[in-house]
């Protein structure tokens, strides 16, 4: 069902609550993201950053609140748990607009690099094998791994695996890309090569990008907007310049201090 939006907001989360049993992970969270905006989500571990991405990727449901992705309602659940739920086809249609890259790569270990990238375009988007392979070569080019096309994930370094994972997500042509701490499992040099790929990507495409990261320098360069959150709530948000150079909240200042000292 299409919903009228006054601006070009591609992601709208309103009063989103998410609980795991007695643990409240997100509390009345509001996030709006504009089309083609690059947003970095920062905050201490356990503050609910991954949960936000997993909700947008439709890997996780919510307890109450409203989520609209590219004009399509994903959830609209009142606090008394009544409200609309979407059909399987709608979920699939919304899912097609979103791609995600995970911290632990999650490549398919029994498939070559090429097949990792072409499997979904062939079986989900119904591209022909030739089209899918041609497109895969282009994306591998973009992440600098054409020579690994026939390798298996076990033969790649962590940084290479993550670049393949990026190419795999790109091959589905999602409007929104989600990145969850994609360099956290990597050594600094390998992380740098992945971040370089990401920076080029951000410059080249008008895709909307939402990334969770602990690399503050990267967030500063990459993002149009930084959202700092803690315990399921947004503490402060704004341009990188505002958050990193002129944070308003004491909590933001102390968080940045500990993170920057650690790196």
């Amino acid at each position: 069902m299409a919903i009228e939006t006054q601006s070009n907001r591609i992601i709208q989360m309103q009063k989103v609550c998410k609980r795991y049993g007695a643990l409240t992970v997100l509390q009345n969270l509001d996030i709006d993201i504009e089309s083609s905006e690059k947003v970095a989500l920062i905050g201490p571990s356990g503050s609910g950053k991954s949960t936000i991405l997993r909700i947008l990727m439709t890997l996780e449901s919510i307890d109450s609140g409203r989520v609209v992705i590219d004009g399509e309602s994903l959830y609209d659940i009142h606090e008394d748990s009544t409200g609309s739920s979407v059909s399987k086809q709608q979920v699939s249609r919304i899912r097609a607009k979103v791609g995600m890259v995970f911290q632990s790569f999650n490549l398919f270990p029994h498939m070559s690099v090429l097949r990792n990238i072409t499997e979904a375009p062939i079986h989900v988007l119904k591209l022909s094998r030739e089209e899918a392979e041609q497109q895969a070569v282009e994306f591998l080019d973009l992440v600098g791994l054409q020579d690994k096309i026939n390798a298996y994930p076990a033969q790649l370094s962590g940084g290479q695996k993550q670049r393949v994972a990026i190419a795999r997500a790109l091959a589905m042509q999602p409007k929104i890309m989600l990145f969850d701490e994609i360099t956290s499992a990597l050594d600094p040099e390998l992380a740098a090569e992945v971040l370089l790929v990401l920076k080029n990507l951000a410059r080249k495409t008008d895709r909307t990008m939402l990334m969770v990261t602990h690399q503050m320098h990267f967030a500063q360069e990459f993002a149009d907007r930084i959202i700092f959150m803690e315990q399921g709530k947004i503490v402060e948000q704004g341009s990188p310049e505002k958050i990193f150079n002129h944070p308003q909240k004491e909590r933001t200042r102390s968080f940045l201090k500990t993170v920057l000292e650690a790196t």
Partner: protein
Amino acid sequence: MHFRSSSEIGTLCFLRERLTVNENIFDWAFALSLLPKLLDALIITVTATVMGMALAMLLGLLWAVLKKSKQPVMYWMATTIVEFFRSTPLLVQVYFLFYVLPDAGLRLTPFQTGVLALGIHYSAYLAEVYRAGIESVPKAQWEAAEALNFSKGHTFKAIILPQALPPIIPALGNYLIAMFKDTPMLSAITVLELLQTAKIIGAETFRYTEPLTLVGILFLILSLISARMIRFMEKRYGY
């Protein structure tokens, strides 16, 4: 001292004859002459095992998938079936199918009935094996597939199953050999597998040593070959 009666002498002569025969306890020429018949029976035994295993692998996968179903009826049905076939003896199942299926209007040959019994019985064990294999695949693989918008069916077929199978090859192989060794149960319903054939030869010739020894040797050789093949597959399909 008593003179032995003629009947006693006769018995002694007979015993001496038996003893001379027993000196030559294994008659190689006789054994060799049995081989063609026993090899025919071996083909039946192997065919029953291969077909039984194929059926068990299909049904076992079905039970494993149904047991993962969110629908309570499916789950309950699969669980009951698996429990039932695992907790009753194979021989009882063999007899049951043999005598009850015709009453239910299903006419199968003894061989077909035997394959069915082996397949059903072992499917209950294989369901567990599949479950373990499927659970060994990280949850993140399901999520990566979900994020790429794969259907549940394609995820299972193309992503999960290919990763779940290699680690369970040894377990599947053990059950294959176990099933092979259980095929003599089919002699109970007149299937002319290896043991039944050996027994018939024994009854006809009054010699059991050669046929039964050959049966043992044939089972041994085939079990060893199977074990070798399983180890090869393990190496081939691991990644």
